[in-house]
């Protein structure tokens, strides 16, 4: 691990999302136990851990995507800038406009590339006219490093793009609503190494404007893109700290076993 970025320091101390004693239950199954996590602003936070350890579940709690699962119950406190996101007064629709999400499998709408990106701003009423919408679509596609590839075929279906392009389109779609936090659930697991590299580069660029939380199976990826890393195991948050420290000098023996490949 000679990657230079391991040395990158977290350059802000503003806390965006704060979870305290977060518990998640699926029916009677206690999936997440006592998780305390601070997601910093303008920082990439990686969640790593073996399959089924609850990292995706916890990620989906951060923008209440778990609401769609009837048996799922969340306890403890999760706040976005000090406001509890599970307060009964919170409308998940408003919350998700501020906390965007990119999924494991690229899932563009079966609509044109333009409509994919324009959908969020349209339903949230973020633009007053077509020109503004055009500008948002262009800037988001530029930020997602896709503009040069698709600028002359914005009306082509988004599903016709390659896997990597589709995933970047989904990222463009997610940032089009100008979220404060971007959640990414294994965004590169369906991509080849070249597309993965592009997306990782993109994540690093997005860090200047958003707080990014990424779930990944690849420890190399976590080491490459993140500044802070959380290691989950069997529903517990085992260790959480600066990425460099987690990978070079883990405090917990379980973390060390996992990153050295002995458990997982």
């Amino acid at each position, binding site marked *: 691990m000679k990657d230079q970025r391991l040395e990158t320091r977290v350059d802000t101390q503003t806390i965006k999302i704060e979870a305290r004693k977060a518990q998640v239950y699926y029916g009677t199954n206690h999936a997440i136990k006592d998780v305390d996590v601070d997601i910093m602003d303008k920082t990439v936070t990686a969640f790593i851990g073996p399959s089924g350890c609850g990292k995706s579940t916890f990620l989906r709690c951060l*923008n209440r*995507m778990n609401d*769609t699962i*009837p048996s799922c119950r969340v306890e403890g406190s999760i706040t976005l800038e000090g406001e509890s996101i599970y307060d009964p007064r919170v409308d998940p*629709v*408003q*919350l*998700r*406009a501020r906390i*965007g*999400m*990119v*999924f494991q*499998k690229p*899932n*563009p*709408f*079966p609509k044109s590339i333009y409509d994919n990106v324009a*959908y*969020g701003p349209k*339903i*949230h009423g973020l633009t007053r006219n077509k020109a503004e919408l055009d500008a948002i679509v262009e800037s988001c596609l530029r930020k997602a490093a896709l503009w040069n590839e698709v600028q002359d075929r914005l009306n082509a279906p988004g*599903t016709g793009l390659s896997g990597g392009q589709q995933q970047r389109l*989904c990222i463009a*779609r*997610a940032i*089009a*609503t100008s979220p404060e936090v971007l959640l990414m659930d294994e965004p590169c697991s369906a991509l080849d190494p070249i597309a993965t590299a592009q997306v990782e580069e993109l994540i690093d660029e997005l860090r200047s404007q958003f707080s990014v939380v990424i779930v990944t199976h690849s420890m190399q990826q976590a080491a490459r893109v993140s500044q802070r890393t959380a290691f989950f195991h069997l529903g517990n948050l085992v260790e959480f700290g600066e990425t460099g420290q987690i990978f070079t000098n883990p405090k917990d023996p379980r973390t060390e076993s996992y990153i050295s490949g002995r458990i997982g």
Partner: protein
Amino acid sequence: MTASAPLNPRAHHDTRASLLVQDPRTKARNATEKRFRAYGLSAIVLALLALVWLLISIFGNGLPAFKQSFITMPVTLDAALLDKGGKRDPADLAKATTIAYGKLLASALQAEIAAKGIDIGAIKPKDLAKMISEESPATLRNRVLADPALIGTTVQVTVLASGRIDGYYKGRVTMESAALDKNTSPEQLALADKLKTAGVLSMQVNPGFLTMPDASDKRPEAAGLGVAIMGSIYMMLVVLVLALPIGVAASVYLEEFAPKNKITDLIEVNIANLAAVPSIVYGILGLSIFINFAGLPQSAPIVGGLVLTLMTLPRIIIPTRAALKAVPPSIRDAALGVGASRLQTITHHVLPLAMPGILTGTIIGLAQALGETAPLLLIGMVAFVRDFPGAPPEGLFDPASALPVQIYNWTQRGDPGFVERASGAIIVLLVFLIAMNAVAIYFRRKFERRW
């Protein structure tokens, strides 16, 4: 595991045998497969034979219904007979009954025969008049009443020949059967042959089969499907307007919003059960609710449409729910992830993707409803209706018939002329069904999207 220690010693027993010879197990398996294919093929062949048989019998019997024997001749519309007042007053004109027009036609036929120099043989004038359909005087009368200026002039008319003469040319009536028939005679048929040679009598395409209303037992030649087609179309409109929105709304609610609990489970099971309820039960339900309780008129397309809506609803809900289920969850996640509400997710993304399945299900449900007879019998749609229903929406409350009921009705009639009518009506019904299925396929292709 090392290569030298096989897991199962017996597995290596046959490897020494030649690959070119099938071992007994392989032979048995291949024989089973061959038998299975033969069963499948013979099932298909049987089904095709049945279909071919059905089509041959329907088209063989039914196609003649689209052609009819007509008598073409000049008729002098005698003013003294038709308009005694001489003022062309509609009230006066209406006093001239079909009997007067019948006499007019009979004498016109006599004159035409004389003009062509045909020997009528031993036929009495009364029997001569019987060669013209009993429907024809009414047709002529309606034409004159619609255009009184015709009175006093000589017009060329084309009128229906009697059902027996028509049957003679369609092979239904022979000289032998005519000898035993009090409605016709071999002499009449011989004269018809002469008229045909002279060009007075001819076989023509009969648009009246599709446009005219039903006719009484004695005049199969005049019976048409007009009222039945109108009634069926009206009912399909009612079913489409009611069943599609209610069915889709119910499906969306059950699939996307309803909590999963005992009550929704019960509803689900019962929807599946309702789809299997015999349609005649819906007829009884419709009779008690819509006619006895709500007081809607009998024989009306609105009642038929409502009953068929009840019957069609489960048949729309089931495929619609299947279509909604088939939309990948990733699309829902994507929409929710950018902050769409549940309803926006459904209307913007899920419904458009499910549309081909929904439309196909709906149209197949409609097609089933179109062919449904039993419930309509119970709400009085089997009545003899000669008046066309008015324009919708009021027309929905006028009495009308329906295609399948008309077919059933005609198969009950005594005159052999109705056999071809019934088969012809089946052809019309089949054409409607094929057209609807073609529309379903078109929609499926048009809205199909890949993701």
